[in-house]
């Protein structure tokens, strides 16, 4: 769910005007666009940050790609959708060859995370709001064991709440491929979580 409102400070009309001026060579307009998209790009890159890769380097790559290709933006989708697609594909290209996928063990979890796993198994209902951060850390550890593309897909689908069609638009994969990948990734995730559960006393 990408909204222009995620990056406050510019309305759609202002973005369009900036784009027109930027294409005409107005440096100030390009700078405005850079400041407008920077928080969005940074969030996306941080969420899909490949292991051992500097976030700032990737953010720079994405911003340069966007700024250099302003003329190719057709305007059929909102500007931030287009930026997101470039960001997601840049991340995908970076993580494609990543091979380090650690197996998660109960001993790798913090005390709070272990308690949370027990709580999830025994109690029903949503977790306490104070456990959000631990939940995110546990999810990060679980996702770290998946293949890079699957990890990105799981994040987009379950953490950022994108629909299959949106993910298809962001990644360039067709809808069937997104569904198949999501299914396989979910099976992997379930297997890893089940292993963790076996170790729980």
């Amino acid at each position, binding site marked *: 769910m990408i909204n222009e409102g995620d990056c406050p400070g510019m309305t759609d009309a202002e973005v369009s005007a900036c784009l027109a001026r930027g294409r005409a*060579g107005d*440096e100030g307009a*390009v*700078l405005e666009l*850079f*400041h407008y998209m*920077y*928080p969005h790009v*940074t*969030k996306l890159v*941080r*969420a899909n940050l490949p292991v051992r890769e500097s976030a*700032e380097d990737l*953010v*720079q790559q994405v*911003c*340069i790609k966007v*700024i*250099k290709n302003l003329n190719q933006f057709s305007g059929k989708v909102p500007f931030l959708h287009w930026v997101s697609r470039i960001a997601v594909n840049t991340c995908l290209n970076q993580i494609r060859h990543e091979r380090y996928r650690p197996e998660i063990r109960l001993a790798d979890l913090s005390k709070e995370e272990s308690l*949370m796993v027990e709580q*999830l*198994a*025994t109690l*029903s*209902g*949503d*977790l306490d*709001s104070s*456990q*959000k*951060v631990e*939940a*995110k850390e*546990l*999810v990060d550890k679980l996702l770290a064991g998946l293949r890079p593309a699957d990890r990105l897909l799981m994040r987009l689908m*379950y*953490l*950022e*709440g994108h629909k299959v069609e949106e993910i298809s638009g962001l990644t360039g994969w067709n809808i069937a491929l997104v569904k198949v990948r999501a299914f396989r990734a979910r099976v992997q*995730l*379930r297997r890893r*979580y*089940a292993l963790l*559960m076996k170790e729980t006393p």
Partner: protein
Amino acid sequence: MNPIDDQLNRLFRAASQAGSDPVPTPPYGLEVRVMAAWRRASPSGFWDAGLLIRGLIAAILILGISLWPTLHNTATTNPFSDSLQLADSYTTAQIDNTP
């Protein structure tokens, strides 16, 4: 014990509510590098490649148009062109053979 899918769903729900770290303002160095890349990529005023290419094409066209009548006339309409060439080559050969 709750089914694994249910546990995972609750875990994801809680994780998705955790806000991400606030995004700081872009570092000055990054801004400079991005703008420099844009300047390198953007056409540089009057002497951009497009203008040069268009100029070159126009020059070739003008050259072709101005030479065409001359070449056309020499090749097709001058009835003495072959004789003239023969005479010219004979004269050249005579000059070359002169001791």
